[in-house]
């Protein structure tokens, strides 16, 4: 159990290849922190620097109060679950889980107690004598988790642990990991490229892109108040609508509509208006903004209905009542809820609203 601090951390391979740039995050004790971003954004490198598998070029990483820059991986008292699981193929499930405890020179009876306890929690009791190759993907994943939890480490690192599971198992394991986090009362740092995993599991989320930390916050904060265009587009499915717009006289003017902004922005600003599909509904209000949409595609999901179409010269997505009768080619009048409105500066792409 410990906090983790990234203090101005930089990872540079060569003079012009920098994969992590000035990375600063404080991860609290017992927190479930998710590092999320597209592939190649530096999230795994950030995690591997914490694990001690990559050297830190600049800055400091602290586990608790201790700077670990020059501490070897084996002495950092962390556990890691790898994407490939990295089980030792020549050892049985039992020995795989006992290995880190043997490395810590623990007594045999204590090792046995801990391994049996972990295998009971993970439902691996009947597989202890098997070799990893005789297990299914989901079982291997559990062994990898078991190998990590037996040690009661200070920090628990997970590098895309669900990406090799099928969709159903992934959903189940997501829930189980959250339970595990609650039971173990340990700091979890979880790396993923899947924003659904990030939103559902994290106490807080750190979003990275191109080596730069974009925003840190709770899932709610990030969803409702994205700090910039990248975060707004990365979180949420279907993605947020982005409409080029100019600000004149307290309202934003797009090609097909004009909307009054809830907060004054300097007149003449150019940028991107952003709103999520659920802000565009079939409920129109008097005096509210209405959009005249030409529907191209209708997607019915049962609980929701998404309309993809154009307003003026811009493409956008709306989430409407599933009972609304609409067909491709129709023109519909939709209401825009201005409470969920964002405006991103044209140059800096930072959120102004």
């Amino acid at each position, binding site marked *: 159990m410990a906090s983790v601090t990234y203090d101005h951390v930089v990872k540079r391979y060569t003079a012009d290849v920098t994969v992590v740039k000035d990375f600063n995050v404080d991860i609290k004790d017992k927190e479930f922190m998710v590092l999320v971003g597209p592939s190649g954004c530096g999230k795994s490198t950030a995690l591997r620097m914490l694990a001690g*598998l990559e050297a830190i070029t600049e800055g400091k990483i602290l586990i608790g109060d201790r700077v670990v820059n020059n501490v*070897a*991986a*084996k002495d950092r008292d962390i556990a*890691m679950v790898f994407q490939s699981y*990295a089980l*030792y193929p020549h050892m049985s499930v039992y020995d795989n889980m006992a*290995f880190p405890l043997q490395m810590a020179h623990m007594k045999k009876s204590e090792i046995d107690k801990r391994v049996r306890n972990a295998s009971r929690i993970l439902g691996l009791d009947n597989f202890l004598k098997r070799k990893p190759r005789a297990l299914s993907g989901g079982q291997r994943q559990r062994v990898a988790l078991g*190998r990590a939890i037996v*040690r009661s480490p200070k920090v628990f690192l997970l590098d895309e642990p669900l990406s090799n599971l099928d969709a159903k198992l992934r959903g189940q394991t997501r829930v189980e990991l959250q339970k595990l986090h609650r039971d173990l009362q340990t700091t979890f740092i979880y790396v993923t490229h899947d924003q659904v995993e990030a939103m559902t599991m994290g106490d807080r989320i750190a979003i990275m892109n191109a080596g730069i930390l974009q925003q840190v916050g709770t899932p709610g904060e990030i969803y409702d108040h994205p700090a910039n265009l990248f975060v707004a587009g990365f979180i949420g499915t279907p993605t947020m609508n982005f409409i080029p717009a100019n600000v004149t006289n307290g309202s934003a003017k797009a090609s097909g509509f004009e909307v009054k902004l809830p907060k004054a922005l300097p007149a003449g600003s150019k940028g991107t208006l952003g709103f999520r599909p659920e802000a565009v509904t079939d409920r129109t209000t008097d005096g509210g903004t209405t959009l005249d949409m030409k529907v191209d595609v209708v997607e019915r999901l049962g609980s929701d209905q998404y309309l993809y179409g154009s307003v003026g010269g811009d493409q956008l997505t709306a989430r409407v009542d599933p009972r609304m009768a609409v067909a491709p080619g129709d023109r519909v009048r939709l209401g825009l809820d201005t409470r969920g409105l964002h405006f991103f500066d044209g140059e800096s792409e930072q959120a102004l609203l």
Partner: protein
Amino acid sequence: MDFGVLLTDLPTLVVVILGVPALIGAYIVGSEFLVRRLSDKRRPQVRPWFWVGPALFLVAAYLLLPAIGTVFQSFENNNGNFIGLGNYESQFANFPTGGAWVAIRNNVFFWLIFYTLFTLAFGLILAVLFDRVLYENIVKSLIFMPMAISSVALGVIWNFMYQYQSPGESQLGTMNALVTFVLHHDPVSWLQDQWPTPTFNILNNLALIGAATWGITGFALVILSAALKGIPADLLEAARVDGAGELTIFRRVIFPLMMPTIVVVGTTLVIFALKAFDVVYVMTAGNYGTDVLAYRMYNQLYTAGNSGGASAVAIILLIAVVPVLIFNLRQFRAVEARR
């Protein structure tokens, strides 16, 4: 056979150029024609035999039959008369210095143990160390280089390395230069000195084995290095995070995962050790108690003119090699099956 006849006798040349491919073609077409007439069920059972048939024929004609002939010859004297186990009796006579005993001891004891162990140990250590070196491929090529040298040249090179000049004179051999200059010891006659005793002369045998090891380490290195590369990097990273030091990782993760390959390389080296010939032939000609079975076979046949004795030695060698060969093939298949 005088192949020059083919140039003067044109019809024969034409037959060779056209006839051989025609015969092969006819064999393929003919056997396919026969196979097609079989039922759907029998066809896949029979067809492979037609295709391996020529290879089986060649192995039988050039390997199996001569081997059987050698077995018969080992029971005959030089006039072709059956003498039972007489040849074997003389090879196994006068333990421990008579007959083939010195050669058997050198092969089965010194060469088999030290040649195999040295080569495996050097190959493994170098493979693991080079894995962490920046210019790995260049360094590996350097170690592999002796494999490109003819083993006769290798023997000559190492003869220079082991050269001996009387004490007080300047030493031309690298080894004795080191011994006199660094250790301030009298020069050692590496190849002739039967140290510690003539019945257990480990020194000059090790000198030969050292030269042969130098020549073969590249082979072990390349195969073991490939096996090492086959171990996923994240296994080693997982072990590091699990709290294992680099030596523990080698002992508990790398070594066990390389074991199947080590066994295959090891048994291959055992076969090489049992068949050792060239280094001994060039460097000592089997003198000073450094004889080996393959060289003794050569000597019996060409120097002593004793074809029966040579055949008996050949069969002794064959009996020693075959079990290792079978084990090696099985192990190799097991490694392949695990991929």
